């Protein structure tokens, strides 16, 4: 046995390039599987930890039914406590603020959830009760005392260190009245609630919070700890119902887990994407391994034949090949694990960008290591079985001759039948079977994969057709000798099919990724265009009082200023159910000076629409909503307001992708009247045409930046940072597509080399008939070109299908409303790459063919 292993190692070393290629296949598979496994675990762990630990042992949460209306009176606390089954009712008030000194930039991040404020999140808590539901892990100092009036704060240690805040010293934070000084009496670790807001988090006594944030007697949330005997799911349901009954419909009683639901839904979409890449990596790896081993067997035909004449049995031959595979898979898996851990780091960083949420690496579970290495070995063995079996089939006599092209027609016919069945089945599933979500898009994705599989099976039967279709152009490019080459494609059809399939997958991947990227890009661009009009965008982490409008307008160089308020509201559907919507409140008069709405499907004069909006009890609805519910101009929509349900007339339909298009626009007046909100989320500033935008930006910053905690961004910067985000995430997928193309090109190298090796004598004959080296090169390049054409063509076909399905999957699972745009650029790029790759990859084999020594070639027998 040991001797056999040594023999295997020797034969691997003897063909370093091939060995490297095979190892690359194994490493690729193992590394991708492992890194995606780690990333998925880490992400999931981070998200669940955040939402479970930060809500701790809370069984139920009471919030204002209309979240944006903010707080409610703390008197409710007693009513809640009096409900049977409630062990403790824990009050909470929260506020987003900033450190008063310059040390903390007033930042905000653009993420897939929209614009998220940075700054410091402060919880006002009842120290006595809060620890019943949340675990603060004290690292230094003491926790808040029972006295709810002390001006104390407990901060997360990392945050304190980053901002040079010391235990025992005081910290000044921004408040509506200006600022408040609090003494840092304790530091907690970044665990449990300490993870909130990426660790920029602190707790202060409840009364203090109410005082400094000017919200006397208000609460944002009450966390409920159910009595021991009431914690079973049924009991909790009952408790939830009786609570809701007791406190009335203006409050929501929810399970804490539902907070994280939307996030985990998004994450699961992202993870599905990653998992698909896992599968592709396995296929790509298996393909490389198969290819490399087939080549080894062809190359060693004579050697194996000789061993067979010396009395080696078929099984012994197979065993030897399989032993080489096992040896390699051990080495490859080891490298793959190392690389996988590194790759996971990168993937986790991308995930963080994607979610705007820190994801700490989890300890790498042994099971993940074992399973990825196991998959690596199993795939290697499976991919080697066919070549090993072929090696075993080599008869002693056959080995002394060159093998012909024994492509059996039966297999090709069978491929044709099964392939057609797969294609038809997939088409029926995609177009004729309406499968309800959430399964629909998954099934459709599977159907597209089935279609590609079917397409790959059809390749052997269809290469002749492709050859005829391209004959004229191949001839124009590579002449008659090129034609001779492209006809050779009809010879090792299965081998060709495999390579074509690899190219096809690569091209399809590029296309789908392009399609998704441009759809996202357009979506983001469009809503940004509406979301941020004007030249400058003025934004703050703390609410901005409305006197700012006049102040900003007075800054030299400012032409006009308009306030915007984004509000989460609810729409009442005809059946009485409610549905969350976003309201964008604008001041029609100033709004039209700064920016404009993009009206669509609306009859009338835009100025009149704005006048109607200003008149009140009127809204605009987004085209997405209009389409979804068949709303037209003149219809009414019922919204839940502070003054009950109100009907609003739809004055116009506008293009607005904010909140994935689930948005209506209302007037500032209605905002005050019906929602009692009088602060702005942002101001849009129009700079005078002859003023310097940067100078105005700096001037505003100088005047109000620090005093009012404003961030002033130019529209351009904001747009580019949003687009940058898209770029960052799509670059990860671009890398994967790039890997797929590399794998495919290695496949072309392998296939063409095998063809050259197998046809050595024939190539020698052509040279003796007077074919020059260059003609021979052209012949090989033409054959590879045809592989590129078929791979590109099929990849294009399936890629267009796939990208459509991927977009509808993203839409249905992540709640986006992306429109499908044919990725023209992607089509051109992927086709060019397919052709280019096929040519580049064929250079080596072509050179090998051209260098053949004629007499050796014709004596090759």
């Amino acid at each position: 046995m040991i001797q056999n292993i040594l023999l295997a190692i020797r034969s691997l070393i003897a063909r370093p390039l091939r060995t490297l290629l095979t190892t690359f296949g194994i490493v690729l598979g193992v590394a991708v599987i492992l890194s995606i496994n780690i990333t998925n675990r880490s992400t999931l762990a981070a998200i669940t930890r955040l939402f479970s630990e930060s809500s701790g042992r809370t069984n139920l949460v009471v919030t204002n039914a209309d979240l944006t209306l903010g707080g409610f009176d703390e008197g409710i606390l007693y009513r809640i406590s009096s409900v049977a089954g409630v062990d403790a009712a824990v009050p909470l008030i929260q506020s987003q603020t900033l450190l008063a000194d310059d040390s903390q930039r007033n930042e905000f991040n653009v993420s897939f959830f929209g614009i998220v404020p940075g700054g410091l999140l402060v919880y006002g808590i009842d120290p006595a009760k809060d620890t019943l539901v949340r675990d603060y892990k004290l690292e230094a100092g003491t926790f808040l005392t029972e006295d709810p009036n002390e001006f104390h704060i407990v901060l997360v240690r990392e945050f304190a260190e980053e901002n040079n805040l010391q235990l025992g010293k005081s910290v000044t934070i921004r408040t509506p009245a200006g600022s408040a000084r609090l003494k840092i009496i304790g530091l907690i670790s970044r665990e449990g609630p300490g993870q909130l807001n990426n660790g920029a988090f602190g707790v202060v006594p409840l009364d203090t919070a109410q005082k400094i944030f000017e919200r006397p007697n208000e609460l944002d949330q009450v966390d409920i700890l159910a009595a021991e005997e009431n914690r079973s799911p049924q009991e909790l349901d009952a408790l939830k119902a009786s609570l809701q009954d007791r406190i009335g419909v203006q409050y929501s009683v929810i399970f804490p887990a539902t907070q994280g639901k939307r996030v985990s839904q998004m994450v699961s979409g992202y993870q599905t994407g990653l998992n698909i890449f896992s599968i592709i990596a396995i296929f790509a790896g298996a393909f490389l391994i198969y290819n490399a081993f087939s080549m080894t067997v062809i190359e060693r035909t004579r050697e194996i034949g000789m061993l067979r004449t010396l009395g080696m049995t078929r099984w012994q031959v197979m065993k030897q090949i399989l032993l080489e595979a096992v040896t390699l898979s051990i080495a490859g898996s080891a490298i793959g694990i190392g690389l996988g851990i590194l790759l996971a780091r990168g993937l986790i960083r991308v995930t963080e960008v994607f979610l705007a949420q820190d994801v700490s690496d989890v300890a790498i579970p042994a099971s993940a290591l074992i399973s990825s290495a196991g998959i690596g070995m199993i795939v290697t063995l499976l991919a080697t079985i066919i070549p090993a079996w072929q090696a075993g089939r080599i008869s002693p006599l056959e080995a002394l001759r060159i093998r012909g092209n024994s492509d059996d027609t039966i297999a090709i016919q069978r491929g044709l039948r099964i392939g057609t069945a797969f294609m038809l089945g997939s088409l029926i599933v995609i177009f004729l079977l309406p499968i309800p979500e959430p399964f629909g898009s998954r099934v459709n994705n599977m159907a597209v994969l089935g279609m590609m599989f079917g397409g790959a099976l059809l390749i052997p039967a269809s290469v002749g057709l492709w050859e005829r279709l391209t004959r004229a152009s191949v001839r124009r490019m590579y002449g008659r000798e090129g034609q001779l080459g492209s006809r050779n494609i009809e010879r090792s059809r299965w081998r060709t099919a495999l390579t074509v399939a690899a190219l096809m997958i690569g091209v399809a991947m590029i296309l789908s990724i392009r399609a998704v990227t441009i759809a996202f890009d357009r979506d983001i661009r469009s809503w940004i265009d509406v979301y941020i009009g004007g030249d400058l965008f003025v934004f703050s982490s703390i609410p901005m009082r409305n006197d700012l409008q006049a102040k900003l307008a007075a800054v030299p160089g400012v032409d006009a200023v308009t306030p915007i308020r984004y509000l989460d509201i609810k729409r009442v559907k005809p059946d009485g159910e409610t549905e969350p919507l976003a309201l964008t409140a604008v001041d029609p008069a100033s709004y039209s000076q700064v920016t404009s709405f993009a009206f669509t499907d609306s009859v009338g004069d835009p100025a009149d629409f704005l006048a109607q909006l200003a008149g009140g009890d009127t809204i605009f609805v987004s085209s997405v909503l209009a389409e979804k519910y068949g709303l037209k101009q003149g219809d009414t929509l019922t919204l839940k307001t502070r003054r009950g349900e109100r009907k609003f007339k739809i004055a116009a339909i506008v293009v607005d992708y904010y909140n994935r298009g689930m948005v209506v626009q209302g007037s500032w007046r209605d905002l005050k009247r019906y929602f009692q909100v009088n602060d702005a989320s942002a101001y849009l500033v129009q700079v005078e045409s002859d003023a310097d935008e940067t100078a105005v930006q700096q001037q505003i910053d100088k005047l109000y930046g620090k005093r009012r905690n404003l961030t002033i961004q130019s529209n351009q910067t904001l747009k580019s940072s949003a687009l940058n985000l898209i770029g960052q995430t799509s670059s990860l997928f671009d890398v994967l597509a790039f890997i797929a193309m590399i794998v495919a090109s290695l496949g072309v190298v392998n296939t063409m080399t095998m063809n050259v090796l197998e046809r050595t004598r024939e190539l020698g004959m052509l040279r003796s008939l007077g074919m020059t080296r260059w003609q021979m090169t052209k012949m090989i390049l033409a054959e590879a070109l045809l592989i590129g054409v078929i791979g590109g063509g099929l990849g294009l076909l399936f890629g267009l299908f796939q990208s459509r399905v991927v977009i509808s999957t993203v839409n249905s699972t992540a709640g986006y409303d992306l429109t499908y745009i044919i990725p023209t650029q992607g089509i051109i790029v992927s086709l060019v790459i397919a052709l280019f790759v096929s040519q580049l990859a064929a250079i080596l084999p072509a050179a090998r063919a051209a260098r053949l020594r004629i007499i050796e070639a014709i004596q090759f027998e």
Partner: protein
Amino acid sequence: MPILEAKALRKIFKLGEHTVHALAGVDFAIEKGEFVALMGRSGSGKSTLLHLIGGLDRPTDGEVTLAGMQLSLLDDDKVTLVRRRNIGFIFQFFNLLPTLSTEENVALPLTIDGKDLNAYQEQITTLLRHVGLEERRRHKPDQLSGGEQQRVAIARALVTQPSIVLADEPTGNLDSKNSTAIMELLRRSCDELQQTIIVVTHDPRAAAYADRAVFLRDGLIAKELRFKKSMKVDERLSTILKTMENIPEQS
């Protein structure tokens, strides 16, 4: 003026420590329209001589002049062109392209030369008739017998009307009936088409179709026989057999 002339040809192969003198100084010439058989035991240097004459390999020493061109003065591409236009090769394994039909295989040298095949249709038809494969023009090689495949290869060698046709053991892979047919075909090609032909063979019955038999031994010409036109094949065969007995075993 011979159509082909080889002077003091030497070919040395180095195999590690060993050096093999495959050709140890051969002078050889052939006139237009002549049919020569190269004979000798296995390893005597027949194939090596054919390869040097056909420009498939370069001699260690000496010179080959074909149709007035000194091959040693030409680079690979030029030699390739000489092969393409002036030499026709026939191999033991017929070496047809499996993807091409009979007709296309025959036309292959013209295809490689970038010729317009339409202009050659008549000539190809005549050639196919000459080798008796008119009915098989659309068949692929795997639908043809060994003898038929070799006849396609002969037609392919003749299609450019080369200065010389070189055949290395053309009957080596065929039974005696097919061998006879092939040699008769080559004979006819010489007689009817005035083709100059060199056939390497170790089979005396095959050599009996030639006008001249050249015997190689240890890389040197050991003996030459010239036959009168009037001499019958059987007579030639017995002369050859007699000569072979007189040539001593390899030293």
